[in-house]
């Protein structure tokens, strides 16, 4: 990190005396990040910039809270000034502890959301004093960890009084929000509510009545042992909030410990540079409720550097991929704070939305770039892991690599010439594309490659069926042409479709999830539709995943002719008919443009109350235009 600044304010460096330095990434650091990489040294550069950013946000918070005065004080918690004074006092004794508390991911979410609240940009349900009062919780946490005696009132939410990273006291809930008094006297910690007191004592890591210590996991790896907070208590751990703790059972905690140990071991072998960077770069993981198999949930936030929210994984490898994914987001978020990737939209401009091969919904360019960067890391991980994976995991790893390299590649191609890209943003996409292009040349066994490509085609087709619409003029012309018995549909049907986001679109990844089941348990529960092992999967989807196309086609056509055409049926029918030369035109149309068949079919049915034969209609629509035209425009 270059920091060429003067020191009129106590700021380090040697810049001109009339201004402090600004953070700049080193050339090596920027190069590594643009390539999707970054070691511990790069994370150090980003961390220092994030630290300054956090201090600036705190300054803005203090200014705003002071300006508002009584609105933020005089309630059941200490005033902002009292809390800040305790932090200042604690920093004189133990600057490292204060640094750790203020740089925790939850503190980042809190200060940003509190500032928005103070500026009337946030509609949180929590009272303002409880939001601003979290500064007192942070001050109490720091003083407790540093052994600085104090007594301070903090917010209690439904009886929970968290000291983020230390533990959480549980008092009888006296309503949604109340105040609680925390005191440390000679190392003895006590938390008091209305008529109740939790005596923690001097050993904060020991459970006691009303006291839940924070869980910290040491991720052992040869040569290093980074520590990760398993954050059950922090009110801002989920990047929203404030929310009440989600307390893990002992068995859940053990499961997390085991999964993290496995993941860390895998990362140490398959992603050693990333693992080395995660040591200083990953601070906490907030466990979320378990999800469906092969559908893990995870998230991170640019305002919470070093924090991850994740559901309990199916396997260590899956968690390793999740950590890589979220760490990519974390790196790119911090990079973007220093080097914007996009020019901002002009205020009156309409935001363009794009197809993201990993999402159900159309995404803005900002989100798509984040996804590209994250899944680039995921593809890189599976590429390395598939060479070491054993047993049934080998086929799964090959499938994941084949899937993600092609999804990332298609997204890169879609946005690489966007005018909003800055020089840095354009360079990032160039470098990622060059690496991804090399991966595309690497051999993956035919079976996993074919399954991955079917899942890719299925997602893309389902997305089009949900979110794209030909113009109403093209549709009505097509209906008239079909009714007249024209040989081919009107040319207007080949024009770019409109994007009409369907907020009900969900589980567009069903084919990929079914593929994972097939590769790891060919005859497992997932094969029985009635068991509902895969949400969003219908009988035909399962038949397709089993490779039984003819049966899938019969099922779909039976449903269609009975009038049971749900969104997604058209694209599934296209895949089911693939391989039948007599159905080539219909299949191609339904895989590449299912939205055309759906729109004309629905318009015809609305006008006449009759249902045209789906395959005949698709074949007719496909006869005119077999181009894989991906063009569409946003309908305002």
């Amino acid at each position, binding site marked *: 990190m270059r920091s060429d600044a003067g020191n009129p304010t106590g700021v*380090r460096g040697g810049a001109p005396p009339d*201004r402090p330095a600004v953070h700049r990434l080193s050339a090596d650091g920027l190069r590594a990040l643009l390539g999707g990489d970054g070691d511990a040294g790069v994370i150090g550069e980003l961390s220092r910039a994030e630290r300054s*950013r956090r201090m600036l946000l705190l300054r803005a918070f203090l200014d705003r809270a002071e300006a508002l005065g009584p609105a933020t004080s005089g309630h059941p918690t200490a005033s902002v000034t009292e809390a800040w004074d305790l932090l200042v006092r604690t920093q004189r004794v133990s600057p490292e502890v204060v640094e750790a508390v203020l740089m925790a991911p939850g503190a980042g979410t809190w200060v940003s959301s509190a500032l928005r609240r103070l500026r009337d940009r946030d509609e949180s349900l929590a009272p303002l004093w409880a939001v601003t009062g979290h500064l007192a919780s942070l001050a109490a946490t720091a003083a407790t960890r540093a052994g600085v005696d104090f007594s301070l009132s903090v917010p209690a939410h439904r009886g929970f009084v968290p000291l983020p990273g230390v533990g959480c006291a549980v008092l009888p809930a006296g309503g949604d929000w109340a105040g609680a008094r925390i005191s440390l006297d000679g190392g003895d910690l006590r938390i008091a509510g209305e008529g109740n007191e939790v005596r923690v004592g001097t050993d904060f890591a020991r459970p006691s009545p009303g006291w839940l210590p924070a869980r910290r996991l040491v991720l052992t790896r040869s040569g290093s042992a980074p520590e990760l907070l398993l954050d059950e208590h922090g009110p801002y751990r989920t990047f929203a909030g404030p929310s009440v703790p989600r307390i893990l059972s002992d068995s859940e905690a053990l499961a997390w410990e085991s999964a993290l140990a496995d993941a860390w071991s895998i990362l140490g072998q398959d992603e050693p540079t990333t693992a080395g960077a995660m040591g200083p770069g990953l601070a906490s993981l907030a466990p979320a409720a378990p999800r469906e198999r092969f559908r893990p949930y995870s998230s991170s936030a640019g305002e919470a550097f070093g924090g991850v929210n994740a559901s309990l994984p199916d396997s260590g490898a899956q968690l390793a991929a999740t950590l890589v994914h979220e760490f990519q*987001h974390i790196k790119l978020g911090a990079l973007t704070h220093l080097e914007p990737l996009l020019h901002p939209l002009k205020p009156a401009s309409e935001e363009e939305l794009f197809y993201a091969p990993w999402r159900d919904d159309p995404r803005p360019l900002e989100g798509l770039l984040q996804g590209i960067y994250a899944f680039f890391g995921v593809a890189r991980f599976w590429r390395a892991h598939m060479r070491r994976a054993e047993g049934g995991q080998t086929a799964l790893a090959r499938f994941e690599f084949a899937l993600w390299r092609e999804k990332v590649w298609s997204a890169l191609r879609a946005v690489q010439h966007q005018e*909003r890209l800055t020089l840095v943003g354009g360079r990032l996409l160039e470098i990622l594309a060059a690496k991804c292009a090399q991966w595309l040349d690497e051999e993956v066994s035919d079976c996993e490659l074919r399954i991955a490509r079917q899942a890719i085609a299925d997602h893309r087709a389902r997305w089009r069926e949900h979110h794209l619409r030909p113009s109403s003029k093209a549709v009505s012309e097509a209906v008239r042409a079909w009714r007249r018995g024209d040989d081919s549909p009107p040319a207007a049907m080949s024009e770019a479709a409109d994007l009409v986001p369907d907020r009900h679109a969900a589980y567009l990844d069903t084919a990929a999830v079914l593929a994972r089941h097939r590769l790891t348990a060919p005859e497992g529960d997932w094969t029985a539709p009635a068991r509902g092992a895969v949400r969003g999967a219908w009988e035909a989807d399962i038949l397709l995943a089993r490779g039984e196309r003819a049966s899938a086609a019969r099922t779909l056509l039976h449903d269609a002719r009975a009038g049971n055409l749900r969104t997604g049926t058209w694209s599934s029918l296209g895949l089911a008919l693939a391989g039948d030369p007599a159905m080539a035109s219909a299949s191609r149309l339904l895989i590449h443009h299912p939205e055309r068949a759906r729109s004309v079919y629905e318009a015809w049915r609305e006008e006449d109350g009759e249902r045209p034969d789906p395959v005949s209609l698709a074949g007719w629509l496909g006869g005119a235009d077999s181009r894989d035209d991906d063009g569409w425009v946003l309908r305002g």
Partner: protein
Amino acid sequence: MERAEPPAGAGIVDLSGVPLERLRTLDYPDVSESLERLLGDLDDPHSVRAGGSNPSHAE
């Protein structure tokens, strides 16, 4: 897509080593400019979340 104003570039003033007790009284142009940019960022919906979650799986 019409191109808007060029981005401001790196704009985080380096506060390494600044103790908390001095934070409230820092009064330099770069600090003010950094603050203004950050507050603008806070209002940008894309800055709020940069997650890896898929909405249909968030439950």
